[in-house]
């Protein structure tokens, strides 16, 4: 009984030590990187809107022809589109799509790119040559055109968008992790691990990988903004998330364009949403880069 109490007490102590440290860390970040903090605030706001969408907004697909093309008002915060769908509700639900695509595509793309980079650097020789020529190939097709070609081949849909944008993001993470892993591979602790008989997988996972996290994270955060803008572009061109799903890019294309002269809010809000989101991720990404890579600080 006493032991349990002691353990509980220890947890409380640890938490009480952790909380001020986290607060202090946050305050430091805000003071040193004001632009990065603005970016983080935008990301948090966007995530909150996406999560709370069912509570704070109605059905994004509900048609209401009588109220079509209503201008922004108390009833419809951002107005309605040509089919009378509530724009606020569509924007808020669109945030879900953008966030899902952003994080999933980066997880798939930068994730597999990073693992391949690790393997490529660790084994070197033929493995390295094969992987790097494959990366050359992927990088030789313009990113948007490669994503479009994959979409044309797989067909439209949310999962295919994630896959297409993810594949496009593989090479950058690969290159950055590879060059870092090359340097770490020759370090004495990696050699020491090998000399006591550690397996390849163990050396890669426990000794080399931790040293590659910082550069990988820089590329991954930079990839979030790119992924969101790519999704919007694909959907805008009709080869992304298909209507009637409320993708921000899709909302700016198709029939809506015919009504811009009478309902300019249709042209404005989805674009503001995309720009704000991508701006937030880019500001945050720049700050992350500055913090994690002292060499690039201030550049």
């Amino acid at each position, binding site marked *: 009984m006493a032991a349990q109490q002691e353990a509980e007490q220890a947890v409380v102590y640890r938490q009480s030590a952790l909380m001020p440290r986290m607060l202090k860390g946050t305050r430091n970040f805000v003071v040193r990187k004001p632009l990065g903090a603005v970016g983080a605030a935008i990301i948090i706001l966007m995530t909150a809107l996406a999560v709370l969408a069912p509570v704070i907004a109605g059905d994004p697909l509900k048609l209401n022809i009588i109220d079509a093309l209503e201008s922004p008002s108390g009833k419809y915060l951002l107005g309605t589109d040509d089919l009378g769908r509530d724009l606020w509700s569509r924007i808020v639900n669109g945030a879900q799509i953008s966030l899902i695509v952003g994080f999933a595509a980066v997880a798939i793309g930068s994730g597999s790119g990073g693992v391949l980079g690790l393997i490529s650097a660790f084994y070197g020789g033929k493995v390295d040559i094969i992987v790097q020529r494959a990366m050359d190939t992927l990088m*030789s097709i313009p990113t*948007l*055109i490669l994503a479009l070609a994959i979409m*044309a081949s797989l067909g439209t849909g949310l999962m295919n968008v994630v896959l297409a944008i993810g594949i496009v993001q593989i090479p950058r993470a690969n290159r950055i992790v590879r060059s870092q892993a090359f340097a770490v591979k020759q370090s004495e602790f990696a050699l020491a691990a090998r000399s006591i008989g550690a397996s390849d997988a163990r050396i890669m996972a426990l000794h080399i990988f931790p040293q590659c996290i910082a550069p990988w994270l820089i590329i991954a955060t930079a990839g979030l903004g790119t992924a969101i803008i790519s999704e*919007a572009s694909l959907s805008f061109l009709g080869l992304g998330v298909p209507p009637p799903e409320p993708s921000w890019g899709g909302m700016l294309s198709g029939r809506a364009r015919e009504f*811009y002269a009478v309902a300019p809010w249709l042209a404005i809000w989805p*674009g503001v949403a995309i720009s704000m989101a*991508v701006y937030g991720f880019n500001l945050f990404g720049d700050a992350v880069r500055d913090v994690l890579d002292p060499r690039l600080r201030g550049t």
Partner: protein
Amino acid sequence: MQAYILRRLLLAVLTVVMVSLLIFIILRVAPGDVAMMVYTQGDDDIVAIDEEALQRIRENLGLADPLHLQYLKWVGNMLTLDWGTSYFHGGSVWEDFKEKLPVTLQLAIMTITISVIVAIPIGIMMALKQDTWIDYVLRIISLGGISVPSFWFATLILVAGLYWFSWSPRLEYIPPWEAPWDNIRMFVWPAITLGWVTSATKARMMRSSMLEVLRQDYIRTAHAKGLRNFVVVYRHAMKNAMLPVVTIIGISFALIAGGSVIIESIFSLPGLGRFLVEAMNSRDYNIVQALVAFFSVWIIIANLLVDLTYGFLDPRVRYD
């Protein structure tokens, strides 16, 4: 230098081969039965299928051969400029391509000119005034250029033009030799839109490259021996900071290839980008394959030229 050129050339050829394989896999193997799509012409309600007609379409399109033969035949046709015909309207892809290429080239040249003129001075300015309000304002604007999607920026220009000046883009293309003024007017907004987006990336790269050079010892020496600030920046720093500009211009080619797809669609410019989107939307794979291959070769050649220029300008590069 000769060995370097040879090595780079071989690598470029290898990349072209790999890219052609990738395109073939993505667009010929993955999408399923193209013959069926041609047969139904996008109409999903057809129930009765004439197997013989389907087989005829397959043979006509060369889809009945084994895959490796199809690949070799496709590569051979691409090289001999026999790019086949559109699956749906039957027109020659090569003829369409020749007609649309000048539009995209003109857009690319105008965009690169605009963005180089804008981006390089801004990038240098940001580096020289690092961490002052000028740097902050320019950084916020240039980050905006990366964050605002080009298709939305273009849409705003269109809506504003329509709203206040009742201006809308012309639908038919005017070659520069027929009516130069009309031609420029047609391209100026698309080029500015695309130029802004590509300038943002370039200005940011120019800034970090300049900052790196400004921290070198020889710059401090130049300051220490009493040279004027102007001379240090323009004689000493600029020369080395300009090296990455070559890379920057190379990268613009990639950005423009992707950007033209969007910008041409919005401003109704009859170039290759719009051609590609239309072909993709109607699943016209002959056109898609040819155009994706063309854009990739465009990038590979741009990268090759960048590397060769680098090897020429900076002898250290040749010994990697």
